[in-house]
């Protein structure tokens, strides 16, 4: 029985390597400013890096202040040559807490979304 168990476990470990390359859902890998962080001064842009390439036409990000007002420049873009990156410019931000809201669709049509905050000037 132990031999059977070892064979099964080894087979399970080998399956991922034998699978075709797939893309799947795009999850947020990291961001600048970092999720939940505090930065001393207003950042010029918010940049998000995802685990999969994005479909530009259906991926967007906005940034709002505590009052729910847009503080981004409305110029969300996926830079050429970096298809898993999404960035948007910001207005000059006074000290406070800001919310980043993103909705993206991976190139395999899977939608995901997320929300996080960061503080400027210690919040």
């Amino acid at each position, binding site marked *: *029985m132990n031999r*059977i*168990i070892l064979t*099964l*476990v080894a087979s*399970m470990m080998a*399956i*991922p390597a034998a*699978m*075709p390359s*797939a*893309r*799947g*859902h795009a*999850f*947020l890998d*990291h*961001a600048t400013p*970092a*999720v*939940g*962080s505090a930065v001393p001064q207003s950042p010029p842009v918010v940049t998000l890096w995802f*685990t*999969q390439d994005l*479909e*530009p*036409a*259906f*991926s*967007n990000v906005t940034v709002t202040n505590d009052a729910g007002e847009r503080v981004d420049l409305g*110029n*969300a*873009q*996926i*830079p*050429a040559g970096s298809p898993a990156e999404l960035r948007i410019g910001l207005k000059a931000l006074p000290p406070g807490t800001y919310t980043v809201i993103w909705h993206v*669709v991976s190139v*395999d*049509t*899977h*939608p*995901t*979304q*997320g*929300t*996080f*905050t960061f503080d400027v000037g210690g919040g």
Partner: protein
Amino acid sequence: MNRNRWGAGALAPAFLFAATSGALAHGFAGDRFFPATILTDDPFVADEMSLPTFTRSPNAADGSQEYHLDVDLAKRLTPDFGIVIGRGWTYHQSPGMPAVTGFDALHTAAQYQLFIDGPHEMLGLLGLNVTWAHTGRVQALAAPDFTTLSPTFDFGKGFGDLPRSLPYLRPFAITGNLGFDFPTKTESAGTPNPDNFNYGFAFEYSLPYLQCCVKDIGLRPPFNQLIPLVEVAFSTPMNRTFAGATTTGTVQPGIIWSGPYFQIAAEAILPVTHATGHGLGGLIQFHIYLDDLFPRSFGRPVSEWLQ
């Protein structure tokens, strides 16, 4: 979006359709991703396959040992309606007796997604599970000689909507099942088949959620894809009780690693009543996301295959 605008018009209908209906497999509710749990039925319809789940059960009261190898396939027929089919194989070793092997009963399920509440990270699903008579080794492995109908309500709730003053509680989530077993035969070989009340829960702490939506604490792969959890499940007979018919249940602490197109889970199995067994068991599961592997074909609901 400034890049590749040229293709947006042509792609728009296909992507809009995919992004609003067929691609919403997995357990997503708003910002929350719910992984497929092992003991607790998932509160979402999906295109997924467990291939396989390998279980070493705790020893039975008489000292016998069992190993199980299970395969399950979940498939959406429409975006909100899905089916599940599963089969298991058992190795049974009683003390001083030759080992017995064979198939367990075939089980199926029909599931309807009642609701998905994104802002509150809530999911609800109605299901009807069926375990079919005479589809396993009845004599040797005690597979049932009767069909059992099991209506269930499955739910999930993420706590991302807690106040931001409680940041490290927001990655918590719970999923649960409430259901009944109704055997279609009241007695088998002189032993009553009681109706049962089944209840179980999975308590999860999502490190992916912590990283994406609360605070980046610097975790990187594979640690930012881990979801520690504890699952509990109990079954209590409601009628036709007899000597030895009592509540059975297990507690299963473990961990899930969720990747882009599959997840791997491992759990310990701790029996919580004498009737459940004694000692420590364990399981490991390899679980495939078919919607990620085949996003434009088999991974879509059947109703969308020809669209």
